[in-house]
């Protein structure tokens, strides 16, 4: 009773990869186990926690609710794809670091992808809108206070009009003592 396998191409973070998978393979499993992109986490496998959120054609999608075969012909972005080309952190990542928006880090990739997409839609969220942006993701560690701060900070960092938006990453005022490894 061996399963029928499908040879498919997945385009992830700008790279096209070919894999052979059964039709029932979840996108989250395909990313993690077949492509080795373990940054996308699985917290519930039933679409509630948001840890597995990736961007599919720019839209946040729960990778545990999508089959890998149905992601063919899309552009997928995972947390690994949020870092800048030069290896430095993107604005949302940087904001989470500055604001202590993460503890165990397990929910973090899902927050980062979600916030990235939301800020693209609405680059200048009000405080309530910032809260709403993360209202579909569960975090068991942080109590969300600093995650909301991080959303607001990310908006500043991504904004070319904001003074911090022009500064090189890692040289922001008010940031906690910063140490680069």
């Amino acid at each position: 009773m061996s399963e029928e396998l499908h040879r498919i191409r997945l385009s992830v973070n700008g790279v096209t990869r070919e894999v052979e998978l059964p039709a029932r393979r979840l996108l989250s499993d395909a990313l993690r186990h077949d492509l080795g992109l373990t940054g996308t986490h699985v917290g519930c496998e039933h679409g509630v926690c948001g840890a597995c959120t990736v961007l599919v054609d720019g839209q946040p999608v729960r990778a545990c609710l999508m089959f890998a075969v149905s992601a063919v012909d899309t552009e997928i972005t995972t947390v690994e794809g949020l870092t800048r080309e030069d290896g430095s952190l993107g604005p949302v990542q940087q904001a989470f670091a500055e604001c202590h928006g993460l503890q165990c880090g397990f929910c973090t990739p899902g927050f980062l992808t979600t916030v990235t997409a939301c800020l693209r839609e609405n680059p200048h969220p009000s405080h309530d809108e910032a809260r709403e942006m993360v209202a579909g993701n569960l975090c068991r560690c942080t109590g969300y206070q600093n995650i909301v701060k991080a959303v607001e900070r990310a908006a500043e960092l991504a904004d070319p009009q904001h003074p911090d938006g022009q500064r090189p990453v890692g040289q922001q005022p008010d940031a906690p003592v910063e140490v680069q490894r």
Partner: protein
Amino acid sequence: MTTKLMGQKVQRTEDQRFLRGQGRYVDDVHADPSTLHAAVLRSPHAHARILDIDMSDVLDVEGVHVVWTYEDLGPLSPEMAEPLPLLIPHPDLTQGRTQYALARDEVNYVGEAVAFVVAEDRYIAEDALDKIKVTWEVLPAVVGIEASRAAEHLVHDDVPGNVGARSEQNTGDVAAALARAPHRLHLELDIERSACTPLEGRGTVARWDADTNRLQVWTSTQTSTGVRAAVAVKLGLDLGQVDVITPDVGGGFGVKVMHPWPEELLVPLAARLLGRTVKFTEDRREHFISSAHERGQVQHIDVGFDDDGRIIGLDVMFWHDHGAYTPYGLIVPIITSTQLLGPYKPEVYRVVFESIYTNTVIVTPYRGAGRPQGCFAMERTMDKIAAYLGKDRTEVRAANFIQPDEFPFDQGLIFQDGRELEYDSGDYPASLVKLKKLIGWEEFPALREKMAAEGRTVGIGLACYVEGTGVGPYEGAHVHIETSGKVKVATGLTTQGQGHATVFAQLVADELGVRFEDVEVVTGDTRRMPYAVGTFASRAAVMSGSAIHLAAKRAKEKALRIAADALEVDEADLEIVDGVVQVKGSPGTRMDLGTVAVLSNPLRYAFDEASKAATQFAVGDPGKPPVAEDDEPGLEGKDFYSPQRATFASGMHAAIVETDPDTAEVTILKYAVVHDCGHLINPMIVEGQIHGGVAQGIGGALYERMAYDPSGQLLNASFMDFLMPYVTEIPDGIDIDHLETPSPLNPLGIKGAGEAGVIPVSAVVAAAIEDAEGFPITAMPISPSDLHTLRQEHTP
């Protein structure tokens, strides 16, 4: 000059990895197609006998490598056929019971492991589970404290009355104390089950290396050394053949301190047998029905007090639902029974508890570990006394406080670690002053009036707690200064998001005088530090923090000794600044720490320019042995910290809540925390811990409950049905103020901070709802429909 990092908001170093998707959680290890995957068949019944297991359809499923039931274990390892260990045997636990790695002939909760499959991937392993046919004889299930106490049916045939343990402590004749008190009250207070529910469930990966005859286990645990010992015993291996590595852990909150889970034994056993890497990753439903819960208690209180509200006699009896087995002993109810007293000193206290069996998932500590229940009991009692006497609630508390000049204060009880319950330091009156200010206690009546004019109902509540943190027995640390000047630090306890890599590096940088960025910390790897206990009971900062501080001191002493020799100056004249040893006041005479490390190790061979300086031709006195008799090569420091007793952190929370007149929805408008964990290492991380704790407390107060039906099925075993707070359920802003009463018990004056946030929340929210609604709140959590029902009952 290096600035001192203790007390500073240092940004976390571990974040870089997490933010880039480079965290390494257990399921990320060996994430390649050659790894085999395990799945577990779990009991669908809460109480049943296994009559037959038919596996004839399974073995020929393509891609299946192993299918085991209980019968298969003994032949593989005799110890595996024995029950799992009872980790914390307490003399009062007269009827301790533990399960088997795979159920032998009876199951006692829905979710108990029955069969184990290893296959090419998890999908195929789960297909195989579907083909196992078990014939059951279903037995009556005992669900809930009431049914367990009624004992019409027994969970274990040989445990009379379903009572696993009965325990009593007292500080005098409570009956006499109650009799002489001018006023007396009785309260009955219930708390339901909740659970840790970290976002990453349990997981274990194992690999047997036949070339070296060694087993390597990665597991998502709070105690690598505990798992190591359990695996070695159960698989019949020497401790020295087993390495346990705990990589990044996606939250623990207590549940991951239980060990060994059946899977932590079955996975290594399969890996050894098959010679392949085997992985088990728990799914969310499994986490709900087969890991552990906590909190379920029914508590009865009799209290006698004087006209000022001073407690003369406090008599507490409670029943603790520990589920189907007792692997973690009586830790939770012991903590409730002792920590219930909080910052107060009743003249006489007696507590009796029964820890009882039910056909539900086992109980192990969940963040706060029995304290939220105890705090609920004590603080509801304080409120009731205040209401009875018509006094302000803060006044009654103040009348009962242990005073700042009374420390150390011996409560006359034995704590969870078998030591006296002696508080080391604190200043409760000062905390209360801060809290009243932070929440606006005095201004609240005006706010209430203003809100009432708008047709809104609000209430205010507060609660105080004391938390025994930093319990022993010990932790250790190893500090190694490399010839590059980089410092590698290892401590054996584990990390689940508390920022250990950062706070421990802060301590080392301060003590050793090196740059923070040159310090790298490893936790939870038995190869690097084989002696350790684990991360629980808010003990990491106190225990490993102190050990690391001491180890760094030793490394520093050695560095100064070697440098003094090389520079031909007096040791006392040297200091280390930014990784350079220099003569105080004359920084021209200096030597990099890396160079000192080179000199510390007399070499026969030169590997590079630096090591040339340390060969036998270059260093040492030809008249003496290259390594002195009482010395050893290398620039290292190792030390252990083992305290006499626990430290006692404390705090107070207050909240203003609004209750909706129509929907009975409860909204927290304002939340304030005053917190005292002694000296802070990193205030940013401490505040993060408090935020997270408060959020978990709010979950426990308003949303989370384990909805078992009478047959023992957990009806809400998913995130869809078990309501964990999203950002929308947590107040926008939690006000925090700190007090620092240093602990005299450790060199850094610190106390633990991990659990504080969660402890008083249910008590605070209950008090505030009671204040808003005007009728007693005696059971938590409280849902809108619960509140609605209470309103009906209290409508005249």
